[in-house]
């Protein structure tokens, strides 16, 4: 008996309050949207195979990259790790039976689905061509595409994200098991706590910005329209006040996954646990004070540029602390190279490059040269795809045995991890070069001398596509044919690994009493000895 077999039938899933079932619902839905967004990315790369705009008309191209951005950001990256792995494991990691607000959790999924359907409807009926940033006054006065419905979709998806974040904060504060102090929490929980703060404080500001865009479009008032006395920069401030912290919403949960994986597969406590925990919170705090670096070329004052440039450099510090601490965790550890660890290595390398190039962009001088070029595109894809997606796949492989009770096939998934890594670099590394050479983003055509690098990039995208399809195939296969996993295949220390796989509906037969630190492998050894002794 476990959470999957307790009840049957579609309704038992659609009306469930069980965080684990909701996590599975989310996993299926975000995977669907990932492949929608991925197909759009494929179309973009195909168009850019040749210098002319030949596969599609330029206005179609605008819609394709806009929808790619909107779907990937709001329907995949923001909910990716939190709504699936976080939803499934945060209650288990803190030693609770469920999230604090199970109905709100289910509501969050329904809002996500409603928003997703609206986004798909928009796409089917012609799409939107403003870019995912809804830049005003373009979005309010100059385009005739479906800004309103897209805006509404993002607005609703935002509430789904707020509810997830709110639920996590309440759960982490109020639902910890006896003995589970703040500094015994796995770093995965700390990372989600920080990301949840960003969701709860940032998302409402995006919501109001979108409401104002919608009102401006329907009523025709110039809040953001300079010809009517409005201020387009105000929209930028409101939008990026959410959307910059949003990149930390996207990356922090991924960092949480990496902490768990790196510790488990090097059999060592994460080096500098407290520093890593606080660096998550520091990223959340600093993350709120860097938004104007998206506006260096938009005519904000020189002093603002100076201050935001400095603050942007500062936010690199806690990220670097994490990278260094993971590296020190590896040092003298007993490292093994299972698939989750391969993805984690991929994350560390690619995220470091993504983060370092972010420093180039935070420096206002180089930013003026590089902004709106492919350098930006390469930078955030290194962080989002190279970072977050790698972390997501790492986490899915890592916790797959716990979620399903079955092992994934090791060899082919190691292959998939390597294919993903190669494909990723082939796709996005050339874009750094294209950017420094001056190829602008968001155009369907480009000068012929850029073709060779674009061909590399498109070829890489096909490899990457294979890398993403493989897990779908073999993970589905493993549901029926995978080896039975057992309770703790990785010999990991988290509370979630000490119970049966798949877990009971209420997670624990009885609420655990925690008497050890996180990542205490000695404690785990002692547990096994006791078990042997009691059996013998």
């Amino acid at each position, binding site marked *: 008996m476990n959470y999957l077999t307790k009840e049957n039938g579609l309704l038992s899933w659609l009306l469930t309050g069980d965080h684990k079932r909701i996590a599975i619902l989310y996993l299926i839905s975000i995977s669907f949207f990932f492949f929608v967004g991925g197909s759009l990315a494929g179309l973009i790369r195909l168009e850019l195979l040749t210098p002319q705009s030949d596969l599609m008309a330029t206005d179609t191209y605008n819609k394709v990259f806009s929808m790619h951005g909107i779907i990937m950001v709001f329907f995949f990256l923001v909910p990716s790790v939190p709504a699936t792995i976080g939803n499934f494991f945060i209650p288990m990691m803190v030693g*609770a*039976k*469920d999230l*604090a*607000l*199970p109905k*709100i959790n289910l509501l969050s999924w329904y809002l996500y689905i409603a928003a997703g359907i609206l986004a798909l409807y928009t796409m089917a009926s012609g799409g939107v061509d403003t870019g995912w940033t809804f830049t005003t006054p373009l979005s309010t006065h100059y385009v005739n595409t479906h800004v309103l419905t897209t805006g509404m979709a993002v607005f609703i998806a935002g509430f789904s994200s*707020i509810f997830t974040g*709110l*639920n996590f*904060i*309440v*759960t982490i*504060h*109020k*639902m910890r098991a006896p003995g589970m102090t703040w500094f015994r929490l796995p770093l995965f929980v700390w990372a989600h706590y920080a990301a949840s703060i960003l969701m*709860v*404080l*940032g*998302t*409402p*500001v995006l*919501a*109001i*910005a979108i*409401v*104002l865009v919608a*009102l401006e479009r*329907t*009523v*025709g*008032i*110039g*809040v953001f329209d300079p010809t*009517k*006395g*409005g*201020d387009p920069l*105000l929209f930028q*401030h*409101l939008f990026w006040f959410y959307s910059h912290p949003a990149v930390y919403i996207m990356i922090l949960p991924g960092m949480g996954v990496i902490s768990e994986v790196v510790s488990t597969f090097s059999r060592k406590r994460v080096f500098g646990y407290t520093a890593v925990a606080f660096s998550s919170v520091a990223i959340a705090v600093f993350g709120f004070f860097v938004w104007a670096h998206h506006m260096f070329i938009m005519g904000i004052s020189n002093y603002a540029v100076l201050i935001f440039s400095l603050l942007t450099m500062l936010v690199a510090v806690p990220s670097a602390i994490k990278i260094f601490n993971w590296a020190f965790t590896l040092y003298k550890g007993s490292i093994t190279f299972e698939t989750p660890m391969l993805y984690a290595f991929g994350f560390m390398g690619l995220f470091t490059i993504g983060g370092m190039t972010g420093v180039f962009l935070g420096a206002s001088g180089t930013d003026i040269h590089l902004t709106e070029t492919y350098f930006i595109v390469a930078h955030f894809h290194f962080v989002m795809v190279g970072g977050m997606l790698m972390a997501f796949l790492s986490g899915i492989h890592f916790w797959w045995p716990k979620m399903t009770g079955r092992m994934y096939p090791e060899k082919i998934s190691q292959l998939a991890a390597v294919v993903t890594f190669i494909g990723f670099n082939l796709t996005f590394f050339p874009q750094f070069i294209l950017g420094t050479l001056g190829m602008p983003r968001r155009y369907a055509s480009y000068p012929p001398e850029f073709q060779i690098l674009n061909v590399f990039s498109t070829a890489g995208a096909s490899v990457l596509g294979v890398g993403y399809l493989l897990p779908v195939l073999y993970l589905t296969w493993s549901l029926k044919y995978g080896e039975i996993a057992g309770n703790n295949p990785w010999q990991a220390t988290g*509370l979630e690994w*000490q*119970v049966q796989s798949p877990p009971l509906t*209420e997670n*624990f*037969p*009885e*609420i*655990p*009493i*925690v*008497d*050890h630190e996180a990542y205490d492998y000695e404690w785990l050894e002692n*547990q096994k000895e*006791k*078990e042997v002794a009691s059996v013998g």
Partner: protein
Amino acid sequence: MSDSTAIAHGTAEAHHEHPPYQRHHFETIAQQNDATNFAMWLFLLTEIMFFGGLFTAYLIYRNWYYPAFVAASHQLDIFWGSLNTLLLITSSFTMAMGVWCAELRKKSGLVLCLVLTFILGLGFLGVKTVEYREKWEKHHIPGLHYSVSSFVDPASDPEVHDKYPKDQPLALDMARHTELYFFLYFAMTGMHAVHMIIGIAILAFMIAKAQAGAYTTGHVTFVENFGLYWHFVDIVWIFLFPLLYLISRH
């Protein structure tokens, strides 16, 4: 299995001491109350950020187009604004009394307080309708045949002109920015009114439930959390009233 994490298979004996309204995933009723209460505070935090965007916009445009904002705010009637403030504060009082009645398990007191809160909330919306109607008649609704005549030529609007005889006519390009003031006025009070309508709908639901005996069994969390929401909506108005009605009155 480990014994220190207490995953030994115990019986669920603790379960039958729980009150019926305790959800299965909470260990104690205190934990449940704490958690839902905390969640409500967090939700109100998101609401603050939501309204914060509008307040920021107001702040910026008031600084940019000060004369337009002063002239436009003179169009608002202090009487209606004060009446509404009075209605809302009173409704917050009746709401707080409602929570108190629920805690003391006084059913009729609770129903009475909720009904009073409901009526006061409706009264607020009624006054708002009167005010909106006035804007409609004077063509002060942004985007719908908006007219700047009251600002370019104050004498054409004797009602307001008598109250503020020192108001100078505005140049046309400044007068046009009054539309921005009214846009923010409608956006802010409208967003506030939406919150009121949601609140009143929940009140109606609560009155029905309270009459059937809910909330006076010791399980007051819902009334308490709704009270927090109602007070929050009240407080938003406490900021809107001076910013929109009072600040330019001298």
